[in-house]
């Protein structure tokens, strides 16, 4: 998505920025934002014309891919969302009815379906982030700083990706025999005499959904954070220690600021994955929990493409807003 806004900067400059970054976090406070825009202006003014067109040329293939596979489908979806439909056809006529249906009743006191669905989905985003972020950071930190041997580190890192050898659905479904009413956990607890009645909330509940999300998505946190951590110049940590910083201070003032891009990218991954999901919520929530993706899927199944398109546009806007908020907090362009 964001790639579209980036085709301008020439390739070389990104690395220069990275070097400048390395020194910055020695300050307890991040460097003031004005500096990079200044640099940007310089680099915009400096190059000769041929070099500039070369940069465009270099960015062209990616831009073309985005144009064909992202921009055009999105525009089409946007157009279809304004069309009318009936049981078996979509009718090219301009109407806002699909959006009106979507927000039908949202102005009344009782929450409307759409708002309720989004609240439920956002709740899962927040819960999943609250767990995957510390968890992913801890695992990545362990891998990057505590494992000395590069081979072991790579081995453990690959271990983290093993779950990807099977499909999402299989990883999810494997929880069901464990969590069910007569599942392994309930049976064990009952056999130990700890409970009499099985714990119903283990499966087909918010808990089960969050558990599955954590299981499925933590690795998307680990990878970018690990990448950021691995690029930290160890001398910075030594310098901080020499300057008398405690372990906690080093973590908070040196490592964490330098990991911000990784955290931001991981957060974007997890947010978009959870926002768009309907399979996990469906399987682990026993189909009793609404998700935006599920609503869209049902509408597609019933040939209500314009309604589904309107829903997709609203979902896209919601996700973009969330990412926009995130990039307000962390300037990804500068940090990379």
């Amino acid at each position, binding site marked *: 998505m964001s790639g579209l806004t980036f085709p301008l900067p020439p390739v070389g400059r990104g690395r220069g920025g990275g070097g400048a970054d390395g020194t910055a976090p020695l300050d307890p406070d991040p460097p003031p934002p004005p500096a990079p825009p200044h640099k940007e202006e310089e680099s915009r003014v400096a190059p000769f014309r041929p070099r500039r067109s070369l940069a465009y040329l270099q960015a062209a293939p990616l831009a073309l891919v985005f144009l064909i596979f992202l921009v055009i489908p999105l525009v089409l979806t946007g157009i279809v969302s304004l069309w009318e439909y009936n049981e*078996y056809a979509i009718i090219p006529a301009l109407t806002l009815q699909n959006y009106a249906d979507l927000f039908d009743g949202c102005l009344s006191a009782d929450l409307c379906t759409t708002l309720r669905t989004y609240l439920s989905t956002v709740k899962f985003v927040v819960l999943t982030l609250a767990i995957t972020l510390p968890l992913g950071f801890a695992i990545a930190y362990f891998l990057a700083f505590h494992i000395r041997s590069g081979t072991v580190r790579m081995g453990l890192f690959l271990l983290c990706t093993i779950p990807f050898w099977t499909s999402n659905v299989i990883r999810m479904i494997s929880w069901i025999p464990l969590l069910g009413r007569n599942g392994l956990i309930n049976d064990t607890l009952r056999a130990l005499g700890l409970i009499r009645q099985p714990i119903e909330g283990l499966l087909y509940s918010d808990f089960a959904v969050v558990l599955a999300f954590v299981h499925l998505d933590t690795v998307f946190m680990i990878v970018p954070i690990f990448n950021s951590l691995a690029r930290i110049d160890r001398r910075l940590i030594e310098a901080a220690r020499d300057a008398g910083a405690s372990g906690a201070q080093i973590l908070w003032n040196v490592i964490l600021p330098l990991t911000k891009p990784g955290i931001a990218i991981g957060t974007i991954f997890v947010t978009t994955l959870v926002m768009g999901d309907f399979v996990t919520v469906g399987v682990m929530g026993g189909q009793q929990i609404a998700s935006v993706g599920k*609503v869209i899927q049902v509408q597609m199944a019933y040939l209500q493409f314009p309604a589904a398109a309107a829903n997709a546009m609203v979902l896209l806007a919601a996700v973009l807003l969330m990412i926009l908020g995130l990039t307000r907090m962390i300037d990804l362009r500068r940090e990379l």
Partner: protein
Amino acid sequence: MDLSPSRRTLLKGAAALAATPVTGFPAVHAAEPVTLRYLGTAVSQSSDIAKKVKEDLGIILEYIPVVTDEVTKRAVTQPNSFDLIDTEYFSLKKILPSGNLSGLDAKRIKLADKITGVFTKGEVNGKKIGDQGTAPRKVFYLEGQNAKTFASAPTEWLTLIPTTYNADTLGIRPDLIKRPVESWKDLLSPDFKGKASILNIPSIGIMDAAMVVEASGDYTYGDKGNMTRAEIDRTIKVLIEAKRAGQFRAFWQDFNESVNLMASGETVIQSMWSPAVTKVRAQGVPCVYQPLKEGYRAWAQGFGVPKTLSGKKLDAAYDFINWFLSGWAGAYLNRQGYYSAVLETAKEHMQPYEWAFWMEGKPAEKDILGPDGTLIEKAGATRDGGSFEQRMGSVACWNAVMDENTYMVRKWNEFIAA
């Protein structure tokens, strides 16, 4: 030419079935095999049928198995992606207006007049059955080959030739329920709080819900299969209240989900499909397809051909359909607990004790085996719900597409989000 091995095995097979007359098979297509792309659900797409058809007719079936809604979607949006469609009758209300289907010529269907009265007249042995919803009777005939409207009286153009149909009810776990279940309203009984399930396919789920509402005596629908907005609101309200009270353990959407819910004891009562009950039982778990006093919700599907089909492929499609009605396939489906379109021919291909068990509701004289040879019922067992006449005769309504379908789907989403 035609004395190919396939023909010979066929004759041998026919001889083995002793009294079975061979009902005029069409010419074998072995010389130049025709491939038919067969769009449908996994329900009737068995590899055994494909194998047998290859032997008998030399036609190669290329299955395109998708879920019910996807069949409709494909028929409307990609009519050139298949040569033969096996779809639910209620989907016709969506597919036919798209103009993508061609009527089938009754004169070319040899056993057209033998198709059970369930489809042609809405009757079982002369007795009228439930007509609410999209009963196949209402969408069986076309005004003309390429008509986009259904004919109210019999014509020579048929929309779909029935493949399978059945009467659906609730599945229960008798070992965990320990009390008789007689009515649809038991689905929302407080006795089964947190242990009930309904299917999350809006058009079918809402009809199960309507059966419950009607059974509880709160309201009588004009037509459960074609509700007004007020009726949809009323039904969804009942569902939402039940959901908020924690009545449901989960909802299910596909066959296997329903099997797992029931077999693991997560649910003890739920909407279910007949073969799913059989599958739970095959795992050694007691499960009953409980007949209920308000009757069944029925469904039916059948073969249709796209308008673009012509020449050899069209001939092959007719040959295949004729073959399908001629008995072997019907017997195969009957042994799975479905019903076939032409009962007489299926009977000829079943053992008398099989026919007595599946169709007459009599206790099994011998162990009942499925088409794949697995044990389905031990000797002495009877079929849930009894005979064909009892089961299909007690149909209350049919799977349907409502006029207010769009509104209904929106309200259903509200139920899921509640």
